[in-house]
């Protein structure tokens, strides 16, 4: 599904380099360009099926590069409402457009869910040492 790239400044971030965007009761999740740059040479991404319950702070999938395999950690709890089939077919989409076409899952979250527990763009930049 086509998706215009989010402005990373409008996103929230986890320490494990996932980004999250909340709109209505749907949180879109992907990984950051920093994560993509660190992994390099992506070969495979494993995502949950629609309907799977994901738990904040727990793995929801894995991403594999030539070098290593890493868990993908859910930034929120909820039910997987949509999975990006395109990145499962061609994982390089994630490296090319991590904040747009490279999104991974959309999670339907309970009413009242916020992203306040996640880092802002500036906080995340500080974590990865890029300065604010």
């Amino acid at each position: 599904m086509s998706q215009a790239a989010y402005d990373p400044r409008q996103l929230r971030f986890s320490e494990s380099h996932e980004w999250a965007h909340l709109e209505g009761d749907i949180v879109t999740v992907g990984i950051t360009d920093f994560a993509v740059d660190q992994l390099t040479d992506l070969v495979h991404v494993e995502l949950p099926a629609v309907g799977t319950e994901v738990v904040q702070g727990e793995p929801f999938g894995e991403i594999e590069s030539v070098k290593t395999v890493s868990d993908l950690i859910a930034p929120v709890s909820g039910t997987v409402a949509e999975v990006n089939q395109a990145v499962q077919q061609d994982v390089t989409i994630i490296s090319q457009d991590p904040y747009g076409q490279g999104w991974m899952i959309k999670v339907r979250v309970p009413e009242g869910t916020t992203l306040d527990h996640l880092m802002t763009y500036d906080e995340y930049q500080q974590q990865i040492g890029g300065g604010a």
Partner: protein
Amino acid sequence: MSEALLRTPLNAWHREHGARMVAFAGWEMPIQYRSIVEEHQATRQAVGLFDISHMARIFLSGPDTAAFLDYLVTNSVGNLSPGRIRYALVTNPQGGTKDDVLVYRLPDGGDHSHLVVANAANRQKILEWLERNRAGRRVAWVDRTLQTAMIAVQGPRAIELVARIVALSSGSLAELRYYRAATCRVVGTEGLVSRTGYTGEDGVELIVPAEKAVELWRTLLEGGTAVGASPCGLGARDTLRLEAGLPLYGHELAEDISPLEARLEFAVKFDKGEFVGRDALLAQQRQGLTRVRVGLELEGRRIAREGAEIQADGRTIGKVTSGTFAPTLQKVIAMGFVPPAYAEPGTAVTVLVRGHAVPARVVALPFYRRAGR
């Protein structure tokens, strides 16, 4: 990890050029400068430059050197004529592998008659092994790993590139045959060039004094702009050697893995006389092997890494020792050990990759062979 890591003479260059540095066998080494796959392809298609200064370089001399080395390794190296090189295993008395090495019979005219190039992780172990087995022989050695640098230049255009900057003491680089070494003049110093490598490509490895390493590296890169020379890290070195089906110590070779199990019998010469581990290896050969190294091709894109279980007929039959996504083949490949009954190419097995049973089949090694070989 508390011990300080050793640094090659190119350490600062690597850092200044964006390399990601990792701890490897006690050294701080570049794993990649850019994408591992790009570096891999550069080596397959043009030229890759590799800083392999972490490899141990032990120079030997003395009248008993040839006999001493013949006693310590599996291949026949006592009869090497000057300028010839042989791959060999250093085995323990039980027939397990202490290291895999290249033994050089150095060109005449130098201070030493032989050179052993060993794995970085095994440098101290091999130095101690030499000492323990000396037994009064007239042989001396010096570990010149820290005083020299070693650079591998690998790829279809490697010879063309290196030929421009080296002058061999006799003959031309193009005439230097596979597994031969020659002294040379390069970047204003004396060096040793050998037609060897660990990538499955044609190419050379150069040894120069440590203080000349950066100049040599830069000269290769500048000369290499026309042919597309790329610095490559340990990441690409690993994917290249895996495609070429070459064993890596600590994975396909270890103190409890014999050269016969690793299918390196071409480098084991029982008829050359006594050597450490010979009796154990003969017994193993007589009794039959219980496991052998195989190549595996896996379906899908999940990489089977070291330790993944290999299953067949409803039970675990072995383990993966190395695995990667092979950039040239665009397939997931692995090496591992299975009983001989399952070692025939075409045999269907299953590899357990993080809970997923991935269909795989045994394939002949190497996975990749360059054109014309």
